């Protein structure tokens, strides 16, 4: 199930990447329905596109994020929703609320 979900998310991200538009673009609607967990991911992606048009890089992060989070959930009993989350980065320029995308996971 996780693998299937991961694959679906990957397809969503691939479909989202070409839609990246310059800053100010709004709501690049996906061509097919997204439900449940994926809806939250797309909401986050849309928001990032709106903010700064940086969806390709962000999408990679989201993908990795979800891989880790989804892989964790069944094995370790980690509940992502509502968790207190600390993200560590190596850029002195914080610009993207990557953490919030966990809420879609």
């Amino acid at each position, binding site marked *: 199930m996780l693998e299937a979900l991961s694959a679906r998310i990957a397809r969503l991200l691939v479909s989202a990447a070409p839609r990246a538009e310059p800053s100010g673009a709004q709501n690049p609607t996906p061509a097919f329905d997204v439900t449940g967990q994926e809806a939250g991911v797309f909401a986050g992606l849309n928001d990032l596109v709106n903010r700064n048009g940086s969806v390709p890089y962000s999408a990679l992060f989201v993908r990795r994020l979800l891989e880790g989070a989804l892989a964790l959930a069944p094995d370790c009993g980690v509940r992502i929703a509502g968790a207190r989350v600390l993200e560590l*980065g*190596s850029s002195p320029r914080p610009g993207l609320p990557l953490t919030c995308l966990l809420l879609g996971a």
Partner: protein
Amino acid sequence: MIPIERSLPESSCALALLLLGSRPEVTAGRLNAVCGPRDDRGMRTLDREKFRVFAPMPGEELPDEAGGADLVFSFSVLEHVRRPREFLRRAFELTAPGGVHVHTIDLRDHRDFSRPLEFLRMTADEYEAATGGSENRLRSCEQIELFREAGFEILATRWMDRVPSVAKDGTTALLDWYAARVEEIWTAGSHGEIHPWVEDSTRASFEAPWRSMSLEELSAMGVLVVARRPAE
């Protein structure tokens, strides 16, 4: 594309985002819970009552306010930490008992991803002079051992034992990564499953201590670590 700083001015982590006490009101899939309303340009902003940004700040100096984290994660960060032992000790302190860490660590020479082990041919002084010490050059087992030293329980590890595809401009081929399945990127589920592609002659060209490491260890291009602070 977001510019990523490859070198850090002092040590370790420079960015941290914290989602503050959101248990009562945040449920899965409800992004709005942490975002404010859209402004007149249709853009959302973060709810600053729920996110805190500590950047720029070395990770080992993060304040207690950042503590109690249930989940701590990073992507391609720990290879840049200059004082990894101190960093992970602080990360341990900031993690709630039972809290989990997810980190992917990129072990490649970041100057040129098509020559991912080139920096192992340089002495510490040569590397510092050439790059400012952008990466700490620790290998996968060393990184994992530091987690254990800090008190973490290792829950899972996966290794990337192939040189990832590189775009024409030398950066990571992002779309290839999007399309790949997890096991196509993190191919080895144990250290013993690493396929050694580094040859003896290449290893012999490395500086100590890398020239005495196993071919499997040297063939690891990245490692994914899932660790937990034991519950008290």
